[in-house]
């Protein structure tokens, strides 16, 4: 089995409240925040690795390829994914500001046609743009079935059974491969991924795997191929263009600390008038 995992880098999402806007309002500035793999893409990578291995013995049954769009230094982030266990990378060099969901989906579709994976596994959204579009567009461009917001995946021969986390509960689909699956956070819980190889008794931690020193050493030797948008036959024409950015106004008023439950109730009743 071959799995393709698109990886995006984002400015440290745990400090998203430190994002700023350039004085002319044209750009979002991450300052000295470090880059990280978009958390949902990291979950996709973890799920991909679980699909391809016997979790108890560590034996691998297929190939996991990552693909990333970004400038030259995005390869640092790609090496982290390789250190986690991906086998090789494809780098599409381009400045992130010149991209939108459509261009990314077209570039990924072109990579899929070259690589012919059985499954594209990716984050449901990048936590910088928060758009949640690329996986769905990619599936449509390829004419492939999709399952978005996956919280569980079970591999059954040439099919997967996916539990989708939707507003009203869990919607389950059975899909014939090849397919596009976008993952939600709970895909990394201990029992979320089943591949028929890892024994049922095996419990993964409820999280992505740690990067080992051995993994880092191995990652240095793993190949990263470069493919330009031009080579992929994709025109970099934006269909969604950002004119400006702004930091939303802060909530007005300051925090009022209260001492007792009765004081709180009085204030909510007489001052805030919400109860």
């Amino acid at each position, binding site marked *: 089995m071959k799995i393709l995992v698109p990886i995006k880098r984002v400015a440290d999402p745990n400090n998203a409240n430190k994002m700023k806007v350039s004085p002319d309002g044209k750009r979002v500035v991450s300052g000295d925040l470090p880059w990280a793999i978009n958390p949902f893409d990291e979950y996709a990578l973890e799920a991909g690795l679980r699909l391809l291995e016997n979790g108890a013995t560590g034996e691998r049954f297929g190939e996991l390829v990552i693909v990333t769009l970004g400038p030259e230094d995005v390869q640092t982030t790609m090496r982290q994914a390789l250190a986690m266990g991906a086998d090789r990378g494809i780098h599409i060099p381009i400045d992130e500001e010149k991209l939108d969901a459509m261009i990314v989906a077209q570039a990924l579709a072109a990579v899929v046609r070259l690589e012919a994976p059985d499954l594209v596994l990716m984050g449901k959204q990048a936590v910088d743009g928060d758009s949640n579009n690329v996986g*769905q567009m990619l599936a449509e461009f390829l004419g492939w079935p*999709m399952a978005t917001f996956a919280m569980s995946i079970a591999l059954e021969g040439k099919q997967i059974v996916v539990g989708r986390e939707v507003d009203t509960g869990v*919607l389950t689909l*059975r899909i014939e491969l090849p397919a596009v699956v976008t993952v939600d*956070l709970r895909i990394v819980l201990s029992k979320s991924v089943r591949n028929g190889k890892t024994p049922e008794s095996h419990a993964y931690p409820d999280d992505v795997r740690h990067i080992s020193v051995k993994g880092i050493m191995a990652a240095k030797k793993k190949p990263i191929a470069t493919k330009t948008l031009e080579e992929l036959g994709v025109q970099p024409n934006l269909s*969604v*263009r950002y004119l400006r950015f702004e*930091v*939303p106004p802060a909530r007005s008023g300051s925090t009022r600390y209260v001492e007792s439950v009765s004081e709180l109730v009085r204030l909510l009743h007489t001052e805030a008038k919400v109860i």
Partner: protein
Amino acid sequence: MVQVLVVAELLDRALRKTTLSAITFARQLNESKGGVFDVLVIGEGAEAVAHLATRYGARKVFWAEIPGGYVAERYAPTVAQLVQSQGHNVVVATASTYGKDLLPRVAARFGAGVASDIAGFSVESDGSIVYRRPMYAGNIYGYCTIDTPIHVVSVRQTEFEAAAEVGSESPIEAVEVIQDEVARRVEYVSLEAQKRERPELAEAEIVVSGGRALKSAENFKRLLEPLADVLGAAIGASRAACDAGYAPNDLQVGQTGKVVAPKLYIAIGISGAIQHLAGMKGSKVIVAINTNKDAPIAAVADYFLVADLFKAVPELTEELKRLKSAQA
């Protein structure tokens, strides 16, 4: 002039309330730029639901009967075909998991740009539409335009109030269902829905939300339910509480869970991670109950009760019961 298509969302053979936010967007856009809007009701039992959608001022309500549960591959071709045959230039749905799943797939069929989860829009002097989107967990607003002939837009439910009915009645019309080969490769298995007596999270006037400090599923239920009952509130949870199994996943409030903006949000034992704040900081009044007065939730809280929740929450429930009975 814009011709808007509102893609309705069905739930239990009725119109899901989310649809009414998309209709409000359509009406606002028609007010600013002229034009009309249509509604497409698609899914199982569509014809009956179409009648429920006729009282909102649409030029027409189209319906397409697709039996079985929702599968994007079975819906997208029909939506796209209608847009192209009717010449709609804006396609909108509410950014529920349904709208977020379906619309980008529709957009890709005719190469349209998508502005997802918008919080507002404006029409510039040259007539172009500028969409305002929360990004970076709500820490940045991006203002964008769509440069393709058709715009595809999903709207944040909490930013567009539910449309009220109008006097007139829209005519209804059946549309042809378009099949796509790809749909044969997807089988709808089931929807395990959580049935609740409480109001829907995204629509509730008051939300009582619990975090990891509740320490167990049993505590979560025992402390939060009576409080929610007395307030007629919906119950929410932090990601940590959901991950720990204290609350079901579909109660998660946050950047990647549900976005809520009630008039009162009570955060109980929630420290206030950035991704949680992204889902609730639009609330009118925010109350935090926490032992740590420096918890990040303080950045958005209007009232902060520094207290042990195990003592304070039952006390709060009792105090509110007294207040309610005095009011009655």
